[in-house]
């Protein structure tokens, strides 16, 4: 193993360009998503499905006797069920 300071210094511009690049692309993505959402907001309101809570929201609709819950309540419930009740330290990642 050798310490190569020249190679290190040569790599710094790549590091800078890479970091700058990823922030620029992400910023464009964020702007794009806001535009996309603005263009489809009417449809979203018509569909009326809050993100990530759709299945639970449908379940509530199917049971009129159920108490009214916010999307956050539903998420908390699901989170408790899916995440907190499990005591495994190492969980299989979907990120295969």
């Amino acid at each position, binding site marked *: *193993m*050798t*310490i*190569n*300071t020249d*190679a*290190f210094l*040569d*790599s*710094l511009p*790549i*590091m800078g*360009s*890479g*970091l700058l*690049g*990823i*922030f620029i*692309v*992400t*910023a*464009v*993505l*964020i702007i*794009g*998503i*806001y535009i*996309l*959402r603005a263009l*489809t*907001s009417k*449809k*979203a*309101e018509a*569909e*009326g*499905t*809050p*993100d*990530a*809570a*759709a299945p639970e929201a449908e379940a509530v609709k199917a049971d009129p006797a159920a108490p009214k819950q*916010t*999307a*956050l309540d539903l*998420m*908390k419930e699901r*989170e408790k069920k899916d*995440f*907190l009740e499990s005591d*495994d*330290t*190492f*969980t*299989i*990642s*979907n*990120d*295969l």
Partner: protein
Amino acid sequence: MDGLESLFSNVLNLNIKQVIMWIIGGILIYLAIKKKMEPTLLLPIGFGAILVNLPMSGAITQTVDGAVQEGPISILFNGGIANELFPLLLFVGIGAMIDFGPLLSNPKLMIFGAAAQFGIFFTLSMASLFGFELKDAASIAIIGAADGPTSIFVANYFGTKYIGAIIVAAYSYMALVPIVQPPVIKLLTTKNERKIRMDYTAKNVSKTARIIFPIFVTILTGLVAPNAVALIGFLMFGNLIRECGVLDSLSNTAQSVLSNLITLFLGITIAEKMQADAFLDPTTLLILGLGLVAFIFDTAGGVLFAKLINLFSKKKINPMIGAAGISAFPMSARVVHKLGLQEDSSNFLLTHTIGINVSGQIASVIAGGLILNLIAR
């Protein structure tokens, strides 16, 4: 007697390096079964490490008496990894598994996904400092993507000889996220910062937005980083199948059967690059160390970026959520959420961390693509 001698003659071909590889294989199998650390991959990799390190193993291509004997693991490697097919097919499955709803609901959180890729670029410079060639340094740095298929894709693209060590490091550290991240987060945040509560308002995301999103990301990334368009394209193709609503059967197949099938062969095929002579090298230890550096600095990048935003923002954010920007999904989101609960049992961060975590998945692929673009093969 001669028959007995010839029967056991192969035992004499065994060397200490191969035995060490059996032990390493055994450790990986132990971690997979006993500790449940990424068992879908560490178990096949561990078994494969034993399989290819048997003397004169017929599982890998060998030259015997001047004649080339093709081995099935080598054939699978050339047919599935050397041409980047397996990681791409796996990405279809992963794309079908991911719900980008939380991200579409709160897009500005995506910036943390970008910040948490800092470790990749930092490690690139560190690996260069330690004397690795630039293409090897880039391949090692991508361990910090916390994303197996991207690591395989980039390492393979540059044709690095360290691909075995890189893949083992990438998957091992992904499994160790619950151990690696908390001390880094605690070191960089105060107790009061970890207690910060964040409001969450669920916003409606139309089906149209969900359908257009994967197409938009593919086009944008393809324009910026054309070398990564296959990676992001296959990921987003899987997501489009999920969201379109008319291909449920294909979506289910991609999420389960396809992913399982590819994973089954991916692990054992990776072992082709775990042959003792190439793997048992002090450099392997250095690569494992640099992989850890990448994960630590990814986490630090996300947390410090959140703290930087807090300097200018009236509405404070919990800086821990920045750490969820690494791609290890959903572990990273869960780790940060649990840390929040440790400080305040009613602090609910998961809705934020899940969104950031899926942005990390996209950002890691973009980071991989940028590296492919910035460094000549």
